[in-house]
């Protein structure tokens, strides 16, 4: 074998590993390793404020978690916000995509307009929304006042605070889903609609009988994205009521999400073991949800 051929062999055999190595090195150390190590930390008693140091307690943190009313409160809030955000996001996104799918002048402007909320920072926007939802001088209450409604203390109630946070999430993500739906809508052959029109189907019927069924994979996919996003919802509840006790998600924990409870246990109580147990439970829940969604999507695709 001459020199060139040997070099060629070396190149095809080993060079690719060199190209993917930077990714796997950095991701392995700072992404995958912490994710896996969380499991080990979750089996320890490990509190930064404890002078005694860390020791293994196996499943004690999980036992404590199951009996912890604050944890269940946070899970309940997460579930409530999931319902309040996912359904409106998908419905509004379908509606907006349908509008944008028409022949619209300055369509780029409108497309950019719907995605604008998604590119703005969650911290800035949540602080802005917290002002808009203010009790005494908030714009939303002022508008409601015009219609004769009283001053709502949005942060104080469970339902009202969930609605306010859901508005922030829906505002931020609807446009993103709308663009995904729009892209798929444009791939639907117009002959389907022409045939339906000839058969006398109304626009509404065409939407529910043709558009929505053909978008089913995207709808399910968007639902998964919205769901996994909801599992780590943290910035909105944290910044909705900024202050010394922000991590509790309101005076009564009325809008503390599971991810925010993880943050509270980890970084205000410095209970790393317990916080890690919450992280593991959340990770498992996320994987189950994403996996279920994937299975459903796959079935529909091959049908």
């Amino acid at each position, binding site marked *: 074998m001459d020199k060139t051929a040997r070099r060629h062999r070396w190149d095809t055999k080993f060079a690719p590993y060199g190209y993917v190595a930077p990714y796997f090195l950095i991701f392995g150390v700072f992404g995958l390793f912490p994710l896996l190590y969380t499991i080990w930390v979750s089996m320890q008693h490990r509190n930064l404020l404890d002078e005694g140091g860390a020791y293994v307690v196996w499943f004690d943190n999980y036992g404590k978690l199951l009996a912890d009313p604050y944890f269940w409160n946070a899970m309940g809030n997460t579930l409530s916000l999931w319902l309040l955000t996912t359904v409106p996001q998908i419905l509004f996104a379908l509606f907006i995509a349908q*509008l944008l799918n*028409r022949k619209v002048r300055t369509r780029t402007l409108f497309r950019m307009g719907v995605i604008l909320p998604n590119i703005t*920072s969650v911290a*800035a926007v949540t602080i802005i929304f917290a*002002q808009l939802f203010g009790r005494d001088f908030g714009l939303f209450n002022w508008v409601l006042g015009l219609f004769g409604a009283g001053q709502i203390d949005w942060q104080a109630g469970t339902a009202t605070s969930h609605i306010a946070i859901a508005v922030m999430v829906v505002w931020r993500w609807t446009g993103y889903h709308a663009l995904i739906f729009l892209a798929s809508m444009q791939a*639907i052959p117009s002959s389907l609609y022409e045939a339906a029109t000839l058969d006398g189907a109304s626009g509404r019927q065409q939407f529910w009988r043709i558009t929505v069924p053909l978008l089913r994979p*995207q709808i399910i996919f968007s639902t998964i994205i919205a769901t996994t996003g909801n599992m780590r919802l943290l910035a909105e509840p944290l910044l909705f009521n900024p202050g010394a006790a922000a991590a509790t998600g309101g005076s009564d924990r009325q809008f503390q999400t599971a991810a925010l409870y993880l943050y509270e246990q980890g970084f205000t109580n410095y209970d790393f073991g317990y916080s890690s147990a919450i992280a593991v439970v959340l990770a498992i829940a996320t994987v189950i949800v994403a996996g279920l969604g994937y299975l459903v999507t796959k079935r529909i695709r091959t049908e």
Partner: protein
Amino acid sequence: MTALLERPAPVKPAGPSSRARRLARRVAGPWTYAALIAILAGSAFPVYWSFVVSSQTPDAIDSVPPVLVPGGHLFENIARVFDTTDFALAMMNSIIVAGTVTVSVVLFSTLAGFAFAKLKFRGRNVLLLLIIATQAIPTELGIIPLYMMMAEFGWAGEIHAVIVPGLVTAFGVFFMRQYFERAIPNELLEAGRMDGCHSLRLFWHVALPAARPAAAVLGLFTFMQAWNDFFWPLVVLVPENPTVQTALSTLASGYTTDYTLVLTAATIGTVPVLVVFLLFGRQIVGGIMSGAVKG
């Protein structure tokens, strides 16, 4: 953006001519425009309102009815932000973080994406599957050990603690791989190999030039994400050495909060992404939409 995993709705071969297609696509009527304009207004309103408040005197925020038009105090408020807090440091840190992360993610994603799409090697599929799988689990959930590591390295409170974990993303590798799959015909690379081109030269002279459009979109997304990142910087940084986002949260959480100041800072912190968005909005929209259908 993980929507890249998704396949498009079943596409049957387009039957009718493009003229018929154009006729079939409904022309937008006045109601459509009215609805779209309302949506546009709703999308832009919070950012606009924040700008309005930042151009008013501090008492404007407590006024009834609320102020809805800009005033003449913008520069005064901006000066106040930079005087009362170390917002200049926050901006500097955010620029360094977002800039470094963007360059690194684009470079390493292009390199790895090229290898995954166009080179054959043992374990390729397993490694690719690992990348896809990790996209499903939010890395935030490993935040406790990550923080412990940073404390161990003595990086806690420093911006390298924010930069280093962001240097690569699974999404980036996957995104570039998908692009290379479609954008570069295998024959082109075969021809290059016949001419005795080393794979790194192929990467440099064939793949990289072809990757420019996708790399630009990835760069835009990465910059915006890095600029807007909140959770990890909040955990690992200290108030004395913030990014823009953590500085905002510190500003907003004082016992007596000057909301004009906070919203002015929020407005300033939004300007860089807004500029990027106004310059490259078309590419950003296109990236999201193609992410949904091409796979």
